[in-house]
């Protein structure tokens, strides 16, 4: 498939195609709705975790299959534990207050939700723009950093060894989902 990666128009079309399918599924999953997302954060509705964990199980297993054949490259994000924790907690505050995240807000807009189209959308664009202008000084002051985990992932570390890498995580995720079902959540 690599020969298609540089075909710009085709890739724009692929982006749209994947996006339409993703948006369709987000709506059918119920996660274009504030009540479902905040229900998860209040630990009363476990829809979000069920969707995310199942998506991880399928994606990770698929990568495991394709990785060794060289069909999929595993390239992960740069950054540091510090960035993930500070940025992640800031994100969490916004997640709880807005009740959508950058992907699901696009779905909420498609669902017709006006708080998502107005305040939420404007807020995220503003926030990412603000970050672009504070990023240089955050780097200079070593608040935003790169550490040894930058671009690090267990796939490349263990060369896609399924038994070592995937199986324990797969079983843990399935175990959590099983417990959620057992508790009737």
């Amino acid at each position, binding site marked *: 498939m690599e020969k298609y990666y540089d075909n710009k128009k085709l*890739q724009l*079309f*692929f982006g*749209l195609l994947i*996006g*339409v399918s*993703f*948006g369709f*599924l987000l709506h*059918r999953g*119920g996660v*274009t709705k504030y009540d479902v997302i905040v229900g998860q*954060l209040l630990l009363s509705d476990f829809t979000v975790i069920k969707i*995310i964990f199942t*998506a*991880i*199980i*399928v994606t*990770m297993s*698929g990568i495991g299959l*394709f990785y060794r054949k060289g069909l999929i*490259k595993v390239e992960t*994000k740069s950054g540091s534990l510090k*960035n*993930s924790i500070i*940025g992640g*907690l*800031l*994100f969490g*505050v916004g*997640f*709880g207050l807005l*009740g959508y995240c*950058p*992907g*699901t807000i*696009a*779905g909420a807009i*498609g669902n017709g939700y*006006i*708080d*998502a189209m*107005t*305040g*939420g959308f*404007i*807020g995220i664009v*503003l*926030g*990412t*723009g603000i970050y672009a*202008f*504070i*990023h*240089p000084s955050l780097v200079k002051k070593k608040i935003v950093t790169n550490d040894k*985990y*930058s671009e*690090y*992932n267990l796939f490349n570390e263990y060369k896609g060894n399924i038994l070592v*890498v995937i199986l324990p995580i797969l079983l843990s995720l399935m175990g959590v989902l099983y417990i959620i079902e057992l508790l009737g959540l």
Partner: protein
Amino acid sequence: MDFIFEQRWSPYAVGALIGLINLLGMLISNKPLGASTSFLKLSGMIVGLFDKNRVLSNDYYKKNKPEIDWGMMLVFGIILGAFLSAVISGDFRLMKIPPMWSDNVSSNFIVRFIGALVGGIFLGVGSRWAGGCTSGHGISGTSQLSILSWVAAVAFFVGGIITAFLIYGI
């Protein structure tokens, strides 16, 4: 074929299909799902309308060029796909305030607007600070077994759970 018109599918079916789509994207485009970078690029386009040089001289926009690309088409597609699904299943409706918010917080739209705006700003700053969002870190990065993504995903939910309980009480 009734499932085409059903408003809600099993979360496990939805999760599994999202996983397959994610894999398809990685195969045909070398791109895992992610949404926050597209908002950043849009912000750059908007700033660029007023002052091109501020964007061209900004290191962060140099790394993430504000132009229509795969990711922006993805986010546009999400809007379209959710709209299609909502219309087909009879769930499309213009709604100002989510029911839970209007029952427990306030039924005034201005209050919800400000809450959503401030929440959005935190999401925007936090997602770029952490390098991704619920899709980019939470689904894609975790599936690729990135340590940074797992830590970020846990932080998203820790921050979100604390904030939600502060708003709604225990």
